[in-house]
């Protein structure tokens, strides 16, 4: 096995682990590694990253259905916007300017990171019996040992960010979880574990039209590097899923906020 293949495997493993812990597809990590460190073209890196995103989403499907934290109704509603965004992005792969796209992404990530740091100690849960609305939910919280409820707020904002995440999925190969999870948690009142699980469900569906477009463009090549990345993701996801119950929500929030800050810095200052 060559260095490039080992790098793809390692980056995939890290991305998969993050996927299990905080619900991101890991494209934000995979694209730079595949593009800069391994030397794939940006389009090939994007396509391989999307295969990794789908592997993350597929890994979540083996958990018992009732032990999954995702909010299916919220996911369906937001998917309408993220899939529309992905289709728009896929149709305009060559139209958008790279630098303006990265600037928008960087500013959005910076705002989300700031809100996450401000709300590190805030828990998005309500007492049992509260009005949770149409999109809210209830789940067993391992941190408190009891059942908790939550209500989804600012749905139009969630729809707008999901649309933007869909566009970015097609254009720069990220799963969109890096925007969706902090947005749902910090701005929409969704507990982190639910936000992460809902994001994993969403990123897989959103990646389908984007990958179809990349595949049709021939960006997957002979599929080899994409496969190495995806194998890494599958291994990393299992590791992350083992660690996840042991990691307190606050630590996950710190990891997520730090990650979003790094991404913001990368996109704002290294364009």
């Amino acid at each position, binding site marked *: 096995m060559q260095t490039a293949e080992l790098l793809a495997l390692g980056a995939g493993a890290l991305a998969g682990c993050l996927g299990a812990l905080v619900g991101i597809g890991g494209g934000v990590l995979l694209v730079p590694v595949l593009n800069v460190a391994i030397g794939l073209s940006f389009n090939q890196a994007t396509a391989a990253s999307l295969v990794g995103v789908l592997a993350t989403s597929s890994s979540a*499907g083996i958990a018992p259905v*009732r032990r999954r934290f995702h909010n299916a*109704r919220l996911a*369906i*509603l937001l998917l309408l916007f993220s899939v529309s965004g992905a289709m728009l992005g896929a149709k305009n792969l060559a139209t958008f300017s790279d630098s303006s796209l990265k600037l928008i992404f960087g500013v959005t990530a910076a705002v989300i990171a700031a809100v996450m740091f401000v709300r590190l100690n805030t828990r998005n849960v309500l007492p049992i019996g509260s009005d949770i609305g149409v999109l809210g939910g209830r789940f067993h919280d391992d941190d408190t040992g009891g059942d908790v409820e939550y209500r989804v707020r600012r749905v139009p904002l969630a729809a707008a960010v999901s649309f933007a995440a869909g566009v970015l999925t097609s254009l720069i190969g990220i799963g969109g979880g890096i925007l969706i999870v902090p947005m749902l948690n910090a701005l929409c009142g969704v507990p982190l574990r639910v936000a992460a699980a809902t994001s994993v469900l969403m990123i897989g569906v959103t*990646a*389908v039209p984007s990958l179809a477009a990349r595949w049709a463009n021939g960006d997957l090549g*002979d*599929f080899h590097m994409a496969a190495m990345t995806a*194998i890494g993701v599958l291994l990393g996801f299992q590791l992350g899923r083992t660690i996840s119950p042991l990691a307190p929500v606050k630590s996950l929030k710190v990891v997520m906020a730090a990650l979003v800050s790094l991404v913001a810095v990368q996109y704002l200052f290294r364009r």
Partner: protein
Amino acid sequence: MTASEETGFDRARRTFGQVAYGGVVLGLCGGVLLHFVQQRAMASLVLALTCGLLMTVPAVNLLAVLVEELRRRDWAFAALAAAVLALIGYAVMARL
């Protein structure tokens, strides 16, 4: 809720998830192995089929959500799920 409270439909969903996951693991490992033993054409074919399977999994999950909403007679969310399925179906078919 615990795993023991799973309904037949839940078990079917989980079984599909496990079978698909197994297929993905086998396909990826098999394809990479074939690549290393210089069977490049066969490797590409196996990996292409595996990518197709990876793209099918989210669509089937979405279909399961649609069925669940239909069983609950929640027509609004069932319509939303059907709309999303139609969108990704259109997006994929347009690229074939």
